[in-house]
């Protein structure tokens, strides 16, 4: 019983870690997009 | 006809270079010797299943010492930008692959002679009681390892620190050859020449054909910038 539960927990933990990584990557992309937008609006010459 | 002479001169050039500079073979043979020695030392006292262990160790020693040499054949071309010049000659990539394959095959064959000899001396296993069978296994295993090693070595030409990477990248690809060759070697030691032995042999043949063909067809695709 316990072995089976542990397996499921670890399994979903691993999947969750990957999803979290995807999420943080997404946030970083959005930050870059914002930075790019502000840069394009106010170009320092 | 031109292709054949080109092939001959490419192989000859590599062998002559190696003979003069001795950059690869001594290091490779030394490594093979040391590894064989260490492996055999650990075998001392093992009574049961010796043949199985020796079968694997022989091929591991050959693999690790050999893969370094395979990387060197391409790294050598890189030295004075000779690789670019070689690609500009009217010669197809397939022939370059075949030439490098031949050089690597000869290199590995030398290593095999040394390693097999050392294992006979050090580990006291009747490896050479069936010389013809052992020769067949050694040849086919050599072709299998060399075809994979040459392909990946060519992909890695530009990379200076590639040899360590190459060793662990090739291993999963070459694993079937190592498995089959080890099993076949075990059967040679145990003097079992039955259908199982033929099965492993045929597997080695299939693997060699597949990867040599892959090399001839794909090499052009893989080395291009």
């Amino acid at each position, binding site marked *: 019983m316990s072995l089976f539960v542990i397996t499921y927990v670890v399994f979903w933990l691993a999947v969750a870690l990957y999803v979290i990584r995807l999420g943080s990557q997404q946030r970083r992309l959005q930050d870059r997009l914002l930075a790019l937008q502000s840069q394009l609006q106010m170009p320092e010459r | 006809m031109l292709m054949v002479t080109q092939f001959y001169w490419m192989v000859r050039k590599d062998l002559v270079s190696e003979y003069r500079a001795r950059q690869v073979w001594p290091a490779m043979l030394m490594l093979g010797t040391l590894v064989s020695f260490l492996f055999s030392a650990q075998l001392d006292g093992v009574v049961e299943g010796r043949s199985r262990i020796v079968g694997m160790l022989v091929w591991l020693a050959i693999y690790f010492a050999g893969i370094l040499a395979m990387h060197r054949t391409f790294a050598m071309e890189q030295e004075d930008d000779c690789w670019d010049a070689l690609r500009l000659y009217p010669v197809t990539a397939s022939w370059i692959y075949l030439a490098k394959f031949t050089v690597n095959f000869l290199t590995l064959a030398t290593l095999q002679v040394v390693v097999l000899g050392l294992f006979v001396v050090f580990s006291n296993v009747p490896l050479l009681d069936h010389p013809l069978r052992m020769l067949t296994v050694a040849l086919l295993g050599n072709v299998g390892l060399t075809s994979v090693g040459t392909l990946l070595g060519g992909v890695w030409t530009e990379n200076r620190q590639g040899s360590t990477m190459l060793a662990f990248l090739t291993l*999963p690809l070459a694993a*079937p050859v190592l498995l089959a060759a080890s099993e076949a070697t075990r059967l040679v030691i145990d003097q079992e020449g039955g259908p199982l032995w033929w099965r492993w042999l045929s*597997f080695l043949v299939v693997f060699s054909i597949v990867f040599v063909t892959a090399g001839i067809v794909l090499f052009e695709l893989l080395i291009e910038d």
Partner: protein
Amino acid sequence: MQRSDLKIVSARWLTWLVTGLLVAALGMAMRVAPMEQSMGQVQRILYIHVSVAWLGLMGFAVMGVCAMLYLLHRNMAWNRWSQAANEVGWLCSSLTLFTGSIWAHAAWGTWWTWDPRLTTSLLLWALYSSCLILRGSIQESHRSARITSSLALLGLIDLPLVIMATRWFRGIHPTSPEMEPVMHFTLLLNVIGFTLFFSLLFLRRLRQLQTDNLLRKLELEALVNHPYPPLSAAGG
């Protein structure tokens, strides 16, 4: 390959559908499917194990084919496909080994045995890992793509041989054990649910890689159009 093709990824309904399917599949696996006689509860690992094992193989096929397409067309879009497949496939492959190992402990009393399927999946995992390491270790994008694609393609050629070689060692891995219809249905539902779920992850990652590439291009353009210090003064 185009961004518009991937609009479906962000569709809410799809996410909900997959989530619902997964919950149903897991519920079936954990509660509804009957307990197996000899192994007890641990047998329920089978449902996720088979699903990820299948996905691990599929992922490799996708990676290999995309690598081939990259090598033929030298289009970085294919490399992104192959990278996304590589990452998700590696995850599935790792999970296969993990769940399989626990299964083996429960069923055969050992964490690992040199069974053909186990050996095959270990080598599959090794190939995935090498490709993943390789992707990260080379800076120049096209060279990295070329070398990784070569390895993935050769791996794809190698895989049938690996399966062939390991098969000849006598194995104990069950191929198609007898199961009750409910168990069969549960397994099927799990396989479908996980396939959809990981495909969704794959597509999301793919879109991320595409966005990343687009951003990189735009950032570079912005740099060229609005260089803060004049480039000529800095460069000499």
